[in-house]
């Protein structure tokens, strides 16, 4: 599970039998009391009933696999929607995809303009025409685009999924440590050989590698690096290719925090400062994005998810490249892709596009995914967002 905290929004993604929505009331209270956002239901922010008024809310999930094992309001979509409807006004609930197959649920509220009224809902274009301004422009010209790509994968390749088990990762970590130790010994021998003009120096090297004083700490370190969740998470992240989804060659300041669970399971969060733009004054960008990965490798319920708000294209990797890379890591039997994108100039409703897809979002997902056939392709044209849903199955 993961939590991302931005100045203006919070993203919470939780797995298994977690009771995500039961934390919602407390979340709204914290936003009021500790972050100072406008609140309702109380006269003072310190009052436990004080709940910050959200600007907008999104809640989504894949279809249920084991609803009977879920807790709180999470046993059915109907209960989840009721819980959200009781807390927020004007929410809308959707089901996207095959009802009798893999589908995806979404709950969304409209923007609460009473919190931050739009700059001008309508402006004269100077030729006597009134033009409605897209929401993304109303937010301010300096605001980055908002998009979220989510890939939900099931029926993972069983052999490939073994890399997300602790036993396999520990063995891999041990091999890597042994290789590094050997390399260090070789380098030490070489250095000492240079210093002693090639005389026999093995005994000197052994002082470092096998001496009784150094043995205990080395063993402790080895054990830590082959059992500790974060250490193994890093090993797995690099071995499976996740660390290269946003490679440091293109995203030099990207950082991944990964954890391997015992006996199996894997989670990772990535923070990805934007790739340097050519026209940036200092060669850097202030926008920082995220990605998150969660893996359940057991064959009876295998699942992996990848989610990111790193904008596709521009100076970084395209959306199609990311999808292909991620799918190749997990090798699922089936997967869905959702791309949720704020409308911008490209999707200005005043631009004539009758009968066409509502934005460039769908076009960005047109590239086929090698080894998979697309079964579903659904486009939702919301007020200020476009949603593209696609479902694929292994050929």
């Amino acid at each position, binding site marked *: *599970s993961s939590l991302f905290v*931005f*100045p203006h929004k919070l993203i919470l993604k939780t797995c298994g*039998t977690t009771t995500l929505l039961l934390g919602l009331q407390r979340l709204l209270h914290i936003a009021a009391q500790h972050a100072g956002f406008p609140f309702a239901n109380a006269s003072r922010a310190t009052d436990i009933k004080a709940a910050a008024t959200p600007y907008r809310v*999104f809640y989504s999930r894949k279809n249920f696999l084991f609803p009977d094992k*879920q807790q709180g309001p999470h046993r059915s979509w109907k209960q989840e929607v009721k819980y959200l409807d009781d807390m927020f006004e004007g929410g809308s609930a959707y089901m996207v995809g095959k009802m009798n197959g893999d589908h995806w649920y979404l709950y969304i509220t409209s923007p609460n303009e009473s919190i931050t009224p739009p700059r001008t809902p309508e402006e004269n274009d100077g030729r006597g025409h009134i033009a409605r301004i897209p929401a993304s422009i109303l937010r301010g010209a300096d605001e980055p685009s908002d998009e979220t790509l989510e890939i939900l994968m099931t029926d993972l390749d069983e052999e490939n999924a073994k890399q997300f088990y602790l036993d396999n990762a520990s063995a891999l970590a041990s091999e890597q440590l042994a290789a590094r130790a050997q390399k260090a010994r070789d380098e030490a021998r070489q250095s000492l050989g240079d210093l002693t003009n090639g005389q026999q120096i093995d005994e000197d090297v052994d002082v470092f590698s096998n001496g009784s004083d150094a043995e205990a700490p080395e063993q402790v370190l080895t054990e830590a690096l082959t059992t500790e969740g974060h250490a193994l998470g890093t090993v797995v992240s690099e071995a499976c290719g996740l660390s290269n989804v946003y490679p440091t060659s293109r995203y030099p300041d990207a950082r991944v925090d990964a954890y391997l669970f015992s006996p199996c*399971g894997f*989670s990772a969060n990535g923070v990805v*400062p934007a790739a340097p733009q050519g026209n940036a004054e200092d060669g850097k960008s202030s926008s920082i994005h995220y990605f998150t990965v969660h893996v359940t490798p057991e064959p009876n319920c*295998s699942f992996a998810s990848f989610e990111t708000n790193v904008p596709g294209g521009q100076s970084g990797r395209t959306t199609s490249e990311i999808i292909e890379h991620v799918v190749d890591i997990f090798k699922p039997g089936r997967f869905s892709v959702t791309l949720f994108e704020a409308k911008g100039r490209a999707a200005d409703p005043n631009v004539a596009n009758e009968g066409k897809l509502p934005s460039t979002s769908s076009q960005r997902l047109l590239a086929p995914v090698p080894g998979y056939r697309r079964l579903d392709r659904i486009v939702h044209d919301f007020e200020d967002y476009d949603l593209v849903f696609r479902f694929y199955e292994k050929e």
Partner: protein
Amino acid sequence: TFSPSEGTPHLTINHDVAAELDSSNAFEGPEKLLEVWFAPSPTSLPPSAQPNGLKAVSADEWVGMLDMVNCKILSVLESETVDAYLLSE
């Protein structure tokens, strides 16, 4: 000597939780995803809000909320504009 720049994400590990975690009873991967916005962007926070908005909230406050969700904080990757918490479950 390597000295990270100011904007470099910083990782903190919660060893107390991370060391003793056992996920043997976890069974279902598909997640629930909640996104709550309190303003349209980081640059349009309401006047009453802390300058850093939600990022001004300490990790201790989130712990209480996450207890209700049945999650624990394993580690935090802090950066200038987003804090990424890796959670149990």
